[in-house]
Each structure stands twice: as C-alpha cells, then as structure tokens.
C-alpha cells in the first residue's frame, strides 16, 4: 500500500463547481431522457394497441345489436296458413316455410303500390321484395305458429331488411360498392332512404342477435349467437363442476400432504409445463381420447367442457396453491395444537381462509376457458348448429367458435356479426374479471 498516502490526482474538472454541468453530464442526462422516452413509448404503444383493438371491435360490432326492419301490414290469410281451418298449431305446421312466400309477396306488392301512390313514388314491388330478408317467410311462420289466434287478421309485421340494405343504413355499403354488387342495386338504396324518411323502415334493438340461432351463409341479417351462448354456458358449467374440485383437491394434496420426493417433483414440473402447452394440443387430446377412444358424441358441450377442464386445470391448481401457501403455518399449528388431525386442520381452517384466493383463481381460469377457441375447432364444434342444445350431449358451438364461424363466411356482413359476438364475449369476460377483482379486494388479508 505504497501509494495510499498520495493525494488524489486533480482530474480535469474534479474541483469544478457543482453548479456547472459538465459536458459529459449533459450528454449522460440526455441519454437518460432518451431512455425514459423509449420506456414511455413502449407503454404508449401497448396502450394504443389496446385502444385500437377495442375501437376496431366496437366500431365494427356495436351496430350488430341494431337491425333494420321493414314494417309491412300483412293479412294472415287462413286459406294459406291454415288450410284445415281448425287453428291447430300441429296442423298448421304442415304448411312449410315455402308456403308463406306468396303471402309475403302479395302484401309487399300491396304495400309498394300504396307507397308509390303516396309518399314514395319511386317504390316498385320488385324493389321492395328485393329488400326483404330471405329469412322473412320463416319468421312469419314462427309468428303464426306461436299466435294461431291471430290468423285471419291483418297484422303489422316487422320483416328483417336484407343485409345489404341494413349495412347501407349503417354506413358500411356505399353507392360505389353497391354498384359492383350483384345482390343490391342503387335504386334499392334510394328506396331504402325514402322508406326510412317516412318511418316505414327503421333500426331497432335486435334481441334475436343475442338469443337467436345462427343463420345460413346468405342471410347474415338473421344470424344470432343464442346457440353459442348456451353451448358456452354448458361448457363453463362442466369446467366449474369438474375442474374446481379436482384442481382444489390436487392443490391441497401437493401443498399440504405430499412429501418431497421424485414423484411430487414430477407432478410439479408436469403442472407448470401443462400450463404452457399450446391449447390446440388439448384439442388433439380431446379428439383422440374422448371422441375416437371413448366415443363420446362429437360437437357436444360435454367433450368441449372436458377438454377445457383439462386445459384450465393447471391455472386453477397454480392459483389455489398460491392461495394455500399464503395462509401462515401458525393457523395450522393452532389447529394441530388443540388435537385436530392434519386433515381437519386443512379442511376446517386452511381451506376456508384460502377460499377468496381459490375463487379468484377459479374465475380467472373460467375466463380463460370461455375465450378459448382452438381446441374446440378440433372436436367438431365448428359445425353449423341451428338447434338449441337440450343437454350436454347435443351438438352445440361455443361463443368464440361462433366468431370463427362468422369470419369464415364470404358475406362481408358477417364481419359485423363476428365483432358483435366478440363484444358479448368481452362483456362476459369483463364481468368475470371484475368479480375476481372485487373478491380479491374485499377478502384480501395481509398476514
């Protein structure tokens, strides 16, 4: 330590005033500011991406909750809808949808002539007929079968306008695009404007989008997500009933009872890996085991629910174990100290205290399962299903799969439907996450 007594060498600027920033400090501070802006930029990009995503979905989808209807007075001719004349719905059901077409055609013609004579001189019967959805006869038939007593009356009926007219009134079909489209022409758009002006045609809230069944390729205006909602509800029920007990049971064993040995190690590694396995692999598993091996019905919510159960299980186990881990050992010691068995200590004391955490984890797992699409595609849930499923064994679709179905169809009007279905899905997810947050806030305990 020879040079220990040597005084510090005067460096250039070492004795300089603190009040003056050296060039180097200025450069370093500039770098500091730049770095900070990079960080702000990154956060901003994330937030902007979220805003764009939501804006895109909302702007495309919100309008799907509204639908354009054409108000038409229609005489429910008993000779057509009830040839037997006894008002028996079973007898009346023998008249097929096709049989209602002339009825509608006739009333549309009458309506067109009336309009042409009065407020809207340009309306022709052909124009009007071309503006009504091809789902109209089916809708009318459903109405008649549900209200047989109104046969013979003239009723005011709201027919769905077809998708092009609807999209035009929502601003998505323009005159330029209509000119290139074989399924609509500009005269119809003009007529639609006139009908709107006189109140004959209007947009209304469309419950059928939320609760109605899907519709075929060329009638997007009639498509709904009702079947998908029921399918998703069934699947969530199955996940809840199967995944939660198994997940909680597994967590209790691993956290409270399992001895530290190679088997437990394998289970632990296995669970953390399962949590990161791509979801589509669970779909392959479901196809191979539940459908090909166990011969459970294809496209059924049962199989969907089982696949989602296996997929969510790791999430629930990880959350539950964290909840159990946060309960201090003193609680267990206290119970053991008064002579409770280990099992009693866990079930009487630890588990109730861990409940809020377990519930939160469960809800998050359910939310994840609700939004999952890929595995369901592989077990046949992409099928076109119009019948409401009565049990978990009937064919159904899930909400996210319904979105995928909509996107696969050629008609651009389905984009609106897909976005609308996503809005419904997101509403459910927001509610679930809010519940989870509230639970956590309300019951969170600091030990």
């Amino acid at each position, binding site marked *: 330590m020879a040079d220990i007594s040597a005084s510090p060498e005067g460096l250039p600027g070492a004795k300089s005033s603190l009040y003056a920033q050296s060039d180097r400090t200025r450069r370093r501070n500039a770098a500091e500011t730049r770095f900070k802006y990079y960080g702000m930029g990154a*956060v901003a990009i994330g937030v902007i991406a979220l805003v764009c995503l939501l804006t895109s979905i909302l702007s495309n989808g919100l309008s799907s909750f509204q639908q354009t209807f054409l108000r038409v007075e229609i005489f429910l001719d008993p000779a057509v809808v009830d040839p037997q004349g006894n008002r028996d719905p079973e007898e009346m059901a023998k008249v097929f949808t096709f049989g209602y077409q002339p009825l509608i055609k006739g009333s549309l013609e009458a309506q067109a002539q009336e309009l042409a004579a009065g407020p809207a001189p340009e309306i022709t019967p052909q124009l009007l007929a071309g503006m009504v959805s091809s789902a109209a006869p089916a809708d009318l038939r459903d109405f008649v079968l549900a209200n047989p007593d109104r046969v013979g009356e003239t009723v005011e009926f709201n027919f769905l306008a077809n998708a092009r007219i609807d999209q035009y009134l929502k601003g998505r079909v323009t005159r330029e695009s209509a000119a290139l489209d074989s399924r609509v022409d500009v005269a119809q758009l003009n007529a639609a404007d006139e009908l709107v002006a006189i109140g004959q045609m209007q947009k209304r809230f469309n419950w059928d989008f939320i609760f109605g069944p899907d519709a075929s390729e060329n009638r997007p205006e009639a498509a709904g997500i009702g079947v998908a909602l029921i399918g998703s509800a069934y699947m969530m029920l199955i996940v809840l009933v199967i995944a939660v007990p198994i997940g909680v049971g597994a967590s209790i064993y691993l956290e409270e009872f399992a001895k530290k040995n190679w088997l437990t190690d394998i289970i632990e590694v*296995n669970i953390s890996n399962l949590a990161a396995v791509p979801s589509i692999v669970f779909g392959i598993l479901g196809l191979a085991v539940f459908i090909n091996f166990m011969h459970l019905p294809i496209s059924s919510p049962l199989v969907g629910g089982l696949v989602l159960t296996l997929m969510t299980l790791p999430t629930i186990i990880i959350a539950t174990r964290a909840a159990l881990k946060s309960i201090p050992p003193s609680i267990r010691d206290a119970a053991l100290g008064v002579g409770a068995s280990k099992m009693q200590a866990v079930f009487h004391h630890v588990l109730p205290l861990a409940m809020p955490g377990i519930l939160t984890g469960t809800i998050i797992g359910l939310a994840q399962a609700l939004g999952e699409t890929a595995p369901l595609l592989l077990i046949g849930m992409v099928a076109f299903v119009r019948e409401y499923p009565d049990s978990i064994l009937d064919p159904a679709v899930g909400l996210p799969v319904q979105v995928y179905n909509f996107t696969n169809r050629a008609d651009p009007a389905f984009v609106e439907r897909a976005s609308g279905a996503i809005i419904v899905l997101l509403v459910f997810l927001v509610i679930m996450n809010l519940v989870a947050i509230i639970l956590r806030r309300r019951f969170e305990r600091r030990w």
Partner: protein
Amino acid sequence: MALSYFVILLLALSAAGYVMGRRKALAAAGGDSRGLHSLLSFYGWNVALAAFLTGIVILALWALFGSTLAGSMSWLGGVAALVAAAGAFAVAYGAIAPDYRARNSVEAKVKGILIFCSSVAILTTLGIVLSMLFETGHFFSQYSWSHFFFGTEWTPRFSGNSELGMLPLLWGTLYVSLIALCVSVPIGLFAAIYLSEYATPGIRAVAKPAIEVLAGIPTIVYGLFALITVGPLLRDYFAGPLGIGDSSRSVMTAGLVMGIMLIPFVSSLSDDIINAVPQSLRDGSYGLGATRSETIKQVVVPAALPGIVGAVLLAASRAIGETMIVVLGAGAAAQLSLNPFDAMTTITVKIVSQLTGDTDFASPETLVAFALGITLFVLTLCLNILALYIVRKYREQYE
C-alpha cells in the same frame, strides 16, 4: 344415458351407508357417542365412502374401456359396480365397533381422492403423449418420416399421393414467431422497465392494468383484429404501394398482432424478474453517481438477464403454439418465402385444417395432424423446460 342412473343408484346406496353406519356405531357404543374412538359422523362417512368409491372406480373404468370389451351390453359395468359397492358397504359396515378408528379410515380414503386429483395432471400429459404417438405411428406407417421432416413441399390432395413435408410449415411458424418476438420483447421489456423504475404511481395505476388487459383478451379477438383491421391496413398502406405483397393475410400481419398479444406476457414476466434484483445493487450504482438508465442498462438488466432470457423463451413457446391469430391472420399457403408480406402458414393452422376437413380419418392427410401435433408439443415442451429451469436458477440466485 344409462351411466347416470347407475351413478344415482350408487349415491343412494352411499347415503344409506352413511345413515346405517352412524346408527350401528351409536348402538355399539351403547347410545353414548363419547364411547367411540372417532366422531359419530366418521363412522357414517366411512361406510358411505367405501361404497361410493368402489362403485365409481368401476364405473369409470367401464366408461373408459367397457365399450371396447363388451360392446352392446352397456348395463353390465353398472351392475358390476353396484355389486362391488354393496360388497364394500358390507365390509365397512361389518367393521364398525367402538374402538374402530373410523376417522383414520375416512382420512385415508380422502387422501386417496386427493392423490387421484393430483394425478389427473400426469394422466393428461400421458394422454397427450400416448394418443399422439399412437396416431403418429399410424401416419409413419403410411408416409415416410424423412419426407415428413425434411420435405419442402406441402400439397395435400384428397385423391392421395400428397406431399406432406413439414419444413414450409415450420418455417412459417418460426418466421411469424420471430416477428412477434421482435415486436413484443423490446416493447414489453421497455414497458416493464418504465413502469417499475420511472413511472409515477398515477401513471402506473392506469398503464399497468391497461397493458394487463391485453393479456386477458381471447386470441380469437386478436385474430379478428388481424383479419379485419391490421391485414387490410398493411396491404393498402404498406405492402401494396411498395409492391411487395397483395395479400391481407401475411406473416407480417400475424406476427404484428401476435407481438401485441405477447407484450403483457413479456412485460409482466420481466417486471417480476426486474423486481427480484435487490435494491442494494441499485443503491450501489446510484451511490457511484450513475443515472437511472445507466443503472438499468449496466447493473439491473445484466443481473436480470437469465430471467429475461427465460421469459423470452416462454414467450417464444407461446408464439409457436398460438393458433387463432395465425389461422385468421397468416393465411393457408404453405411456402418457403422470405417476404414477410407473403401469406404463409404454420403448424397450428395445418393441424386445424387437416382435422376439420371432411377427409377419411385413417388417411395420411388427416393423420399428419398428429405428427404435426407431436412436433409442436416437443418443440414447446423443450422451450418451456429450458425456460422454467433458467428462471428457477435465476430466482435461487437472489433468494
């Protein structure tokens, strides 16, 4: 379904077991339950559980394998289950005596249930591996493995004679993932650094949840976003005018959107890892007159590097296994191209398309999906194990 009736019968039998077990125990103790070894209800539970567990295990086995063994006689398993349950009932009922350790017996059974619950995870993995291996075996008996792994042509035909080379799919997968990581890693990392080291509590309270919301959005939503917004935007304002692509579905579309999806994933993992770096290291650096950014770049990030690498690997595994975004955003054309504005396809897209088509299930065109599936599984598994190992080693370093 006949099975559910048997389950109801079994439940009824167990309920009867509970009542009768209780009653016999009480009688055996001469009407005073304090004379028993365990609480009275344990004697009831013991009988009920003995009957129910025996029955349900046999029913479950029957549901799994019965249809292959006995064909149409579906009631056989149910009857066998009920008979066995009744036997177990009788044994447990017979054992009741004042000094019988009913609580220990019940707890052993409950523990058995818990062990079964934890083994479901193992069974799932086994199921995944075995089912895919089995079908992949079928596939390779019909199609050469070297053509599959090293083939550069992917042209499945309904008529047979398909070329099922995996390389174009693997290339598409890796290309999309690479773009996704190029987007998400810098943004996620910088966002995490900003939020944990710079942001005021007010900004953090808004920005952090906003970014985390991105993680809760289902992938189908991102897929739709790619399909209806990002894809057309890239085509009309970027690729189109530059003349480098005319498809709205492209590697770039899928990669960008997937990158957005992964931002919260990378940022929350990095956040954890950066917060695990001890404050004393930061203090040491500030004490020497380092600025915040110098401290982060030269002390915090190097110290957190292993953890960050682990996080990136986990994100990569996510990107490789992601399905809906590429199904809707990347396209279906299997090709080996370098242009990111070309439509390309990935392993996951082809798994979906091969398994949702109407082809014969035993044909190589369908079975190839299982071979793709196991490739995907092995790929992601290796990444996950490596990542978890690195992250765990990293955590131990600062504990």
